[in-house]
């Protein structure tokens, strides 16, 4: 009787076991089957390498080099003491230090640990030759980005670094993994998808220790596309040299097609720091530097424009037909409004438009501004590209800001007073513009209202990029620009002009100076926006010195720039 009960209990136990088999093998079988496949198949990533970046003359500005890292696979270590003794001798590094690095970086028995990064080629050969003695040891080759010209043009070129956590989520579907490097800032970032090489890989079958059993398939990594820029490296060297020890920007752009020949933002940084493990320690210094060397002031820096803005007011005056070329205003050295004196640099006397631009007379523009009105000036400024991104092919461009009465009333904390219009008319107040915006504006004026698109890309691979060489009509009467240009030329050609020192033999130079008051009791910003025409070239350029004092300083640098360009036959 009791044996019968035992039998029933056994039958039930067996039924449970059989039900378990059905559940695990029949119902959940596919799930476990997939897990078993994942268990044994590993993908070994082979890094692709990035395309080179060249200047317009084919000079290589960014290149790759092979770097050798020493790796150790923990589970294959036979004699840890021997191994590190050998390594210490071969690398000429303290043994304890190596063991320390190894211990710190080790996380799984099958995952190789980097113990020494970027070693000499000769040392790498020594290690490879002794590999048969130490099976856990191997040398891994990888590509490192090098920038032969260090700081020169770093803001245009950018730098590369490992993909960071924030970006990996967004870029996963474009083939980036946590192993990949990607461009940060500059062309490296903007054209990353072209520069980036295709990652390859080996699909291998491994055993439980992660050792390769056989190779299942292979995909060769490839190199990304080379990129040729419109930048002229010789000119970059000149610009960088002129801005040495100064905070500022030099931009030179071709008026015909918007090709940027030179763009230098100072202070600059050495992009090699990010790809060279030995220099990485300097990285944090870059981020904490008060002079913000990583900031590309040419496109991401926005500053009050000062008198440069008078060119805009001049255009809006003529466009609104409130004045003609013959209209004059009398400058007594100041303009009085409600008992407050708005000053001028000199007592200019009677000024017409050309004279006002040549002498940068504030009083003329106070009068003109009131006549035209802030709304109209805002409209013209915007159609000339101020307060709007130029859409140059570089990342992190700032739009800047051109104030308007409506915005001030709608969103501002205060009302728009007549005094605001006065300040606005001479480029003071809330207006913020970037150097590249002014270069673009100058080109528009030079081209009689045809706007070009500033850009730095010339070729991708061997294909010319022509999407940027379009011109757009800003829909302001052509004759207006011809008149304004006379004023800009007078600033150079007239003996009393603010930029007379730029009157260089053999060159047609025109332009507008600007001294912008900046906040916080610092030195003024010094601007010069110019146009130079030689037999071969028609260029717009900008020299901007952040807290550089009077515009005389920037004009002086513009002179040196033009002279050096002339000397180096770049004009």
């Amino acid at each position, binding site marked *: 009787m009791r044996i019968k009960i035992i039998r029933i209990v056994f039958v039930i136990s067996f039924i449970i076991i059989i039900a378990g088999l059905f559940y695990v093998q029949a119902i959940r079988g596919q799930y*476990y089957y997939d897990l078993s496949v994942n268990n044994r198949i590993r993908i070994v990533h082979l890094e692709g390498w990035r395309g080179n970046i060249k200047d317009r003359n084919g000079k290589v500005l960014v290149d790759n080099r092979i770097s050798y890292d020493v790796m150790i696979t923990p589970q294959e270590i036979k004699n840890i003491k021997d191994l590190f003794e050998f390594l210490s001798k071969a690398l000429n590094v303290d043994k304890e230090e190596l063991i320390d690095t190894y211990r710190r970086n080790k996380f799984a028995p099958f995952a190789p640990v980097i113990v020494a990064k970027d070693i000499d080629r000769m040392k790498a050969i020594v290690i490879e030759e002794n590999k048969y003695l130490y099976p856990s040891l191997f040398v891994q080759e990888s590509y490192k980005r090098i920038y032969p010209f260090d700081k020169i043009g770093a803001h245009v070129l950018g730098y590369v670094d490992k993909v960071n956590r924030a970006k990996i989520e967004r870029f996963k579907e474009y083939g980036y993994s946590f192993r990949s490097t990607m461009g940060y800032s500059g062309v490296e970032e903007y054209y990353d998808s072209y520069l980036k090489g295709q990652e390859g890989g080996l699909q291998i079958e491994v055993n439980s220790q992660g050792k390769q059993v056989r190779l299942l398939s292979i995909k060769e990594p490839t190199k990304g596309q080379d990129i040729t820029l419109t930048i002229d490296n010789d000119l970059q060297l000149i610009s960088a040299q002129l801005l040495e020890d100064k905070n500022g920007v030099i931009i030179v752009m071709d008026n015909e097609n918007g090709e940027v020949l030179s763009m230098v933002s100072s202070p600059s940084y050495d992009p090699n720091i990010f790809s060279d493990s030995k220099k990485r320690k300097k990285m944090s210094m870059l981020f904490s530097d008060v002079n913000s060397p990583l900031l590309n002031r040419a496109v991401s820096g926005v500053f009050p424009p000062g008198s440069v803005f008078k060119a805009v007011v001049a255009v809006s005056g003529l466009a609104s037909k409130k004045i003609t070329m013959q209209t004059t205003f009398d400058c007594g050295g100041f303009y009085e409004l409600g008992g407050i004196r708005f000053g001028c640099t000199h007592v200019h006397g009677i000024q017409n438009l050309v004279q006002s631009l040549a002498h940068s007379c504030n009083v003329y523009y106070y009068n003109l501004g009131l006549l035209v009105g802030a709304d109209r000036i805002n409209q013209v400024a915007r159609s000339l590209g101020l307060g709007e991104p130029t859409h140059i092919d570089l990342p992190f461009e700032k739009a800047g800001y051109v104030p308007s009465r409506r915005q001030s009333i709608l969103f501002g904390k205060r009302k728009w007073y007549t005094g605001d219009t006065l300040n606005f008319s001479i480029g003071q107040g809330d207006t913020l513009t970037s150097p590249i915006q002014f270069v673009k504006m100058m080109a528009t004026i030079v081209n009689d209202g045809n706007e070009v698109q500033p850009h730095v890309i010339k070729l991708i691979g061997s294909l010319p990029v022509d999407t940027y060489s379009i011109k757009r009509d800003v829909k302001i009467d052509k004759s207006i620009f011809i008149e304004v240009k006379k004023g800009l030329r007078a600033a150079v050609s007239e003996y009393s002009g603010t930029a007379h020192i730029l009157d260089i033999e053999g060159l047609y130079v025109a332009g507008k100076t600007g001294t912008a008051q900046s906040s916080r009791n610092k030195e003024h910003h010094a601007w010069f926006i110019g146009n130079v025409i030689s037999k071969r070239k028609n260029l717009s350029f900008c020299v901007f010195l952040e807290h550089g004092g009077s515009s005389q300083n920037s004009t002086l640098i513009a002179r040196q720039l033009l002279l050096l360009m002339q000397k180096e036959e770049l004009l």
Partner: protein
Amino acid sequence: MRRDLEKRIWLYTIAIISIGLVALYSASFQNVRVPLTIFYDQLLCVGVGLVLMYFLGKTDYRKFYDIAYLFYALNVILLFAVLIGGRNALGARRWIEIAGISFQPSELTKLALILMLGRYFSNRRPSLSFGVFNKMQVVFRGLIIPFLLTAVSMFLIFKQPDLGTSLLMFGIFFIMLFVSGLEYSYIFGFLALCLSVVPFAWGILRSYQKDRLLVFLNPNIDPLGAGYTIIQSKIAMGSGRIFGKGWLGGTQNQLNFLPERHTDFIFSVIGEEWGIVGALVLVFFYFLLINCGLNIANQVKDKFGMYVAVGIVSILALQVVINIGMVMGLFPIVGLTLPFASYGRSSFLVFIIMMGFLLNLSKRRTIF
């Protein structure tokens, strides 16, 4: 009918052994981690074992009645000896070497316990008188004494430490107690008492034993440590699906993802390479063998024989169910072998001896 039962025991035993050998070859033929020598070792054991089984089948099992207590006492001494001078492997002392042969006394204990309890219970006569004193005597003689006798070896095995075998001893004791005819109220009262001790027993477990029990509840607690075995074993079982990956084709097995695949986890090798079909065939043979054993227990006329048959059948059933259950993650990993299939001389030979007893019992169902 008699001849028939005998034949069936031979058939099922050999079938199970063969399936085990096929799986063991697959687990070891690559000679990495699990050396091929264990396959030949097992083959030798099978040869010796089958001969042993044949002769035991011819020997009158009642001879063992006479030596049952002595055998058990000797076994207890061996268990002591293991604790004092046994060979240390994987953090436990389980082996002892006598005359150049090393074996696990705890495996032998299974046999000794069955014989001892068989003799003890078969000597019990139903009590004819009533009264409180008498009841106490029944409990004392029918429950407490045999339990204490069992507890000695249970404790010694637990100290090795080997929780699985120790609990298995309790299982055998309980089933044989159940069959002994003691009143249900005493039996289940005793079981309830034992279960109430469980929470306190937690405290005396070794940390790895606790780990295993916790990991059983959630293997992902420690996927590379204590949970590794169970995860890999489940993957092996499940990935075999219906028809398996084919003999010598199990990736979990051949690429060394399965630890202990030649001993406790031989069933996952079978499950992976032969799928649910192969697994069910093996389980079915076990069931038939156990069924045979129960039939014998039903037919044997002398009580000692009946107890021994029940003991053998229960140990077989318990180990099969627990081993397969643990391979699939239904039970915690307690380190019990799969009878006849797992590699291990002591375990294999003890089960062979038990089958020899069953053969013998099948022949002698009546005493004239």
